[in-house]
């Protein structure tokens, strides 16, 4: 399990083991700009400010280039946090779609 801090909102979200950043945020009641959810379109890219991630599936180099991997670009639908991470949304803000899910997730954040 890991904590994901999301900038610029500074929301802290608990993400289960092997769960992607995008999947974890959805379970915590949040959304942002989302595309195919399968690593093919690149719409859900965020900036990885702190921490490391592992990609659960191969990612096409046309979707996430080597330069982007090096500059901290993170494809959030396929990225699984290795420990706590901080991400920053790009030209987007976190949207709360379900307060109940947020409250349930908050109980796991200390």
């Amino acid at each position: 399990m890991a904590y994901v801090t999301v900038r610029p909102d500074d929301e802290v979200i608990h993400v289960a083991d092997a769960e992607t950043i995008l999947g974890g945020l959805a379970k915590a009641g949040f959304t942002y700009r989302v595309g195919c959810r399968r690593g093919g379109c690149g719409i859900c890219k965020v900036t990885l400010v702190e921490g490391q991630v592992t990609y659960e599936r191969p990612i096409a180099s046309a979707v996430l280039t080597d330069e982007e991997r090096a500059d901290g670009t993170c494809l959030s639908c396929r990225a699984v946090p290795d420990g706590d991470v901080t991400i920053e949304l790009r030209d987007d803000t976190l949207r709360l779609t379900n307060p109940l899910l947020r409250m349930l997730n908050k109980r796991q954040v200390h």
Partner: protein
Amino acid sequence: MAVMRMGYAHVRVTDMADAKQHYANTMGLYQTLEQDGKVYYKAWDEWDHHSVVLEEGGVGLVKFGWKVEYSEDIDLIEKKAKAFGVTVERMSKGENPEIGDGIRFTTPSEHVFEVYHEATLVGTEVGTHNPDAFPRHLVGVGVPALDHALITTSDVALMQRFLGDVFDFYATERVQTSLDDDAHLIATWLTSNNQIHQLACLEGPQAKLHHFAFKLGDWQEVGRAADLFSMDDVSIDIGPTRHGITRGQTVYFFDPAGNRNEVFAGGYPAYRDRPINIWTPEQLGKGIFYHARELNDRFTSVLT
């Protein structure tokens, strides 16, 4: 001359094991060949060797194959494509396994098209001799056939003219900025026969795939497909819903590499003399998604 149908869609996938799970077990396609890192599939009610080709590495479209009625059609299309100003190369039998001689060219939209007349006849899964209505042991959705595709291009009017001149396609529906004669064309739905569309073109980046679609029979089958997508954790884009344009019933969803697929049922019969349906931007949401009546942000931005 006649292009009969989109014969095959050849796409890239990032993970072949995941892709096989999707196209074979969820969609219910039949694998006919695995060779040189590519997997070939046909659907149960198709008779040619393959209609879907998967290639590992990357994402997006490699090419479309178009099957013509007569072998002479290949020469005719070659002439017309050259007259349009497109470079055409010959392809030989076997360049694509189980596909005959033909031509290959890159369209003004920068998509690769192949045109062929011969494909190895495998036969449908019910045969032709006193056939049953459907195979008893269909897997997953059990789609009967490939149906159509939507591609994006920076110049829709140019692609419409190209497909009219070279393939003898005609438009059934259009999205344009107004009803004026000089309106800007935003999207067009094209066909060669009574199928409501074989290829649609939407304004957007060159060389991109919006989706390719499989045929289904009716609402009930579309709903059942969506149920199966939930069972198999398929990422659903939208639906089940209806398109105002074509009147088709639909689910948009993504394969495990992020290529958009569709299951499409219905659609009214197309005729060359039927007046073209025209949609204008203020009703585009209803045209695309007839019930939500709003375009989601993914419709125009998520491409492979």
